[in-house]
């Protein structure tokens, strides 16, 4: 029985760096054992990167994509005057740049905000996997569509929410995304970001973010201290933010 299983699935019991990717995808669709093995097999053993390291430069030619195994990554753009805008945060289980598969280079950089472990995935390995498992191709396509939905939600926040609602919305979003991969619960989550990182996500300054955090604390909605988000009143926080998780597409259905 063991031998037969090993022959059929040589990657059974393979190292767990794909675990959170699988949790993320299985929230939205079923993945069978053969598909799981195929997905595990294309991810290279993770490499460690320190915090504040640009791991992908804007414009560099790309033949592989980065799976975030541990830590937090940002998609970012630096302005001439030194300001930075982060257009998306990535949590464990996310591909940071699956879109590089079709785009071949990126219109932004990717930066570690914390020490990270990254499992690289060659584009050639993706092509081979898609041919054998078109359903996995559609699921990874889904994940790039999900990134686009997150971008749209951030656009709405930047365009039309005030600073308090904007920060509240981000904290609600991260709670959902982290809970899916087992890194949060409804009472909160670790978040090893600085106020400056949050400011760069929200188009604010860190001084202003500190002011907004104080307001959220005084309204007894959420506290962010010592790298930990503690949610006191999740319903109140989501209501203030006009947050709905619909753009995170949490429902499970054949894709």
């Amino acid at each position, binding site marked *: 029985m063991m031998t037969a299983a090993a022959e059929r699935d040589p990657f059974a019991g393979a190292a767990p760096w794909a675990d959170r990717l699988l949790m993320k995808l299985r929230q939205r669709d079923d993945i069978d054992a053969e598909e799981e093995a195929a997905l595990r097999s294309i991810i290279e053993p993770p490499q460690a990167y320190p915090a504040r390291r640009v791991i992908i430069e804007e414009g560099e030619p790309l033949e592989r994509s980065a799976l975030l195994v541990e830590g937090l990554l940002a998609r970012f753009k630096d302005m001439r005057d030194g300001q930075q805008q982060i257009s998306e945060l990535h949590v464990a289980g996310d591909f940071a740049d699956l879109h590089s598969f079709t785009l071949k280079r990126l219109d932004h950089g990717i930066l570690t905000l914390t020490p990270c472990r990254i499992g690289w995935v060659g584009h050639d390995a993706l092509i081979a996997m898609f041919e054998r498992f078109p359903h996995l191709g559609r699921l990874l396509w889904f994940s790039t569509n999900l990134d686009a939905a997150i971008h749209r939600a951030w656009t709405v926040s930047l365009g039309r929410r*005030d600073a308090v609602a904007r920060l509240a919305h981000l904290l609600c979003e991260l709670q959902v995304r982290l809970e899916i991969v087992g890194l949060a619960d409804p009472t909160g989550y670790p978040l090893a970001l600085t106020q400056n990182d949050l400011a760069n996500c929200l188009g604010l*300054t*860190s*001084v202003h973010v500190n*002011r907004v955090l*104080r307001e959220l604390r005084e309204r007894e909605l959420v506290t962010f*201290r010592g790298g930990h988000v503690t949610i006191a009143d999740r319903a109140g926080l989501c209501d203030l933010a006009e947050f709905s998780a619909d753009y995170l597409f949490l429902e499970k259905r054949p894709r």
Partner: protein
Amino acid sequence: MPHFYFHVSNGTGETRDEEGVDLPDVAAAHAQALSGIRSILREELGRGVLDFGGMIRVTDPQGRLVLEVPFDSAVEVRHDDRRR
């Protein structure tokens, strides 16, 4: 690189900065304070309020006061009336 803390006092009360920022020098800290004030004022303006009665106090890691930046120093207010 020197580390600075930006404590804000304004109409909403006092907000202590427990995290701070690394910046090259005091001039950079001043610039950071100005951009912080403008960000806060921009926000309040959206709600129809313009409160210049605020202050940012910048301290070093030993808690010594390095700079005081009043809110009204961050904005030039013009009154020339061109409605003729």
